[in-house]
């Protein structure tokens, strides 16, 4: 699903360049539940941004769903994001003046799906994350855990190939963290590829595979206890 070879990325800092990713090789198959671990500054967010087509890599190659990603203009990137990727952010990033339902329906709007159908599908997904009754509420009327569930529903609604979650539990307490991770697990069980970035070991332990980054290189790539029981690694 995601195939990365010798990926490099650097950012200009003043006159110098900060070399963030120094040759990443990573292969994630369809249906995997992978977490990227690392302290801040290890390059994990940069990796996610590149995988999520929010940023462009400098060197190396990146295949998403078999399609080589190179020289993407904004429009193509937007279309690919809409088609293949669902995002879950640490800070939820819901649009504050839209209701939960409208937020969930937004990716479908950009997919060009009609309003009625959009709302039907969105309501379905809200039901899936247990928030059907909150459909008409604005984000500021929801708790942190609820907001993240809405965000997850939004990530799923356009039926993507990969869900990318950037510190999805970073702003949540431990109880809600568990319920959100539970939800991501369920999604994965249904066959969705889930790609989580975190710096919390407990969160990473709930995934099937942990890739650890340090200073822009992968220092370990392990299958967790839970992961060993799944079909991918047997």
């Amino acid at each position, binding site marked *: 699903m995601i195939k990365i070879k010798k990926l490099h990325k650097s950012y200009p800092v003043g006159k110098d360049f900060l070399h963030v990713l120094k040759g990443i090789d990573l292969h994630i198959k369809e249906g995997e539940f992978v977490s990227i671990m690392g302290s801040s500054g290890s390059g994990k967010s940069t990796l996610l941004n590149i995988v999520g087509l929010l*940023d462009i890599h400098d060197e190396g190659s990146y295949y998403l769903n078999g399609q080589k990603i190179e020289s993407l203009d904004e429009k193509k990137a*937007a279309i690919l994001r809409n088609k293949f990727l669902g995002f879950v952010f640490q800070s939820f990033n819901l649009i504050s003046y839209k209701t939960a339902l409208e937020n969930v329906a937004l990716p479908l709007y950009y997919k060009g799906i009609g309003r009625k159908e959009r709302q039907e599908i969105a309501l379905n997904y809200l039901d899936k994350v247990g928030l059907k009754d909150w459909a008409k509420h604005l984000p500021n009327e929801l708790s942190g855990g609820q907001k993240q569930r809405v965000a997850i529903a939004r990530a799923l609604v356009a039926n993507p190939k990969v869900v990318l979650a950037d510190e999805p539990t970073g702003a949540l307490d431990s109880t809600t963290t568990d319920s959100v991770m539970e939800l991501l697990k369920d999604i994965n069980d249904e066959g969705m590829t889930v790609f989580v970035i975190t710096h919390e070991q407990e969160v990473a332990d709930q995934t099937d595979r942990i890739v650890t980054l340090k200073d822009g290189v992968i220092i370990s790539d392990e299958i967790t206890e839970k992961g060993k029981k799944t079909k991918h690694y047997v």
Partner: protein
Amino acid sequence: MFDLDRWREIFESIKNNKLRTILSGFTIAFAILLFTLLFGIGNGLKNTFEREFAKDSMLSIYIRTGKTTKPYKGLQSGRKIQLKNDDYKFLIDEFDDKMQSISPRIRKNLTAIYKGEQNNYELRAVYPSYQILESAEVESGRFINMLDIKKKAKVIAIGRLVEKDLFGQLSALGKEINLGGMSYKVIGIFSDPGGDNDERYIYTPFTTIQRLYGNTDEVETFGITYNPKLSVDEALEFGDQIEKKLKEKHNVSPKDQRAIRINNYADGNKQVSIMMFVLNIIILFIGIGTLIAGIIGISNIMVYIVKERTKELGIRKALGATPKSIIGMILMESIFITALSGYMGLLIGSGVLKALGDSLEKYFILNPSVDSGVIIGATIVLIIAGTIAGYLPAKRAARIKPIVALRDE
């Protein structure tokens, strides 16, 4: 092009961001309102000005004569120069293409009597075309015509106030008035924008008076209106030419100031049109100034709006919005608000002008109003300005990488 879904998205955004909407809408509405009011009041001033200076035809030249003050070609000074009927033909032969109308005139101050009512009036013996010189308008009946001239008919057209003086509320039309001992039939009543004085004149065929008073061919004055196509400078030149030709014809020294006198209204006309021009420029300045203020206002607000929405736009991009759809959304929203509030400002503005009406007449503001074309033009300018003002930040926002937009918290 009409995309119901997109409009629905825009209306939701407008509806859910009232402060933003009101802010930008108010700026536009206020700019157009000010523009309408200032422009309207400016036009009101102009109207007053035009009315004050446009009483008689602005295009007229009068020719009078007197006694010579200089000897010329063996002729002594002190000789009386008399215009005659042949000067009429002479002027037409010489200057036909430069004249719109020409009429000879003789004036007599006479007592008019009708059934015991009597008063003194100025009787003016003229040709029909004299009506153009006075800008007189026939209220009932008719003005004197060429047939009257030919028949030397004893008919008169009287001013509105003559009728009021002598007939009270009754109609003078068809009645006989005794003027200086002779009876004339009233064929018409006229009004005159020149005011009370001009509405106390009585007009009669020129030939009638020539016949009744001494059966002469003498003319006191010629009144000419020149071709409106002539520029002010050409009109002044035309007056000089008339003077030169008539002096030649009557053997008057070119340096003689008294014998033949030309009173050319183009002279004053020139000053009036300069003042009108200045007034127009001032009005234009006010209009452009208001518009620029409005443009700056809407530009600032658009920059603010896009800044405020950066994060939202980043989210939309992450969810699959193309740069084009981002720009389109911001622009359509801005154009919609600009057009709607511009229209409201226009309605309020012209409503206020209408309500003011002539109540400001004592401040020299008459019938303040603005061409709807001008206002629509101004609104279009603001819409275009709003579009450009929105386009630049929208384009920048569409270019911002979603990660940058989403980074801060």
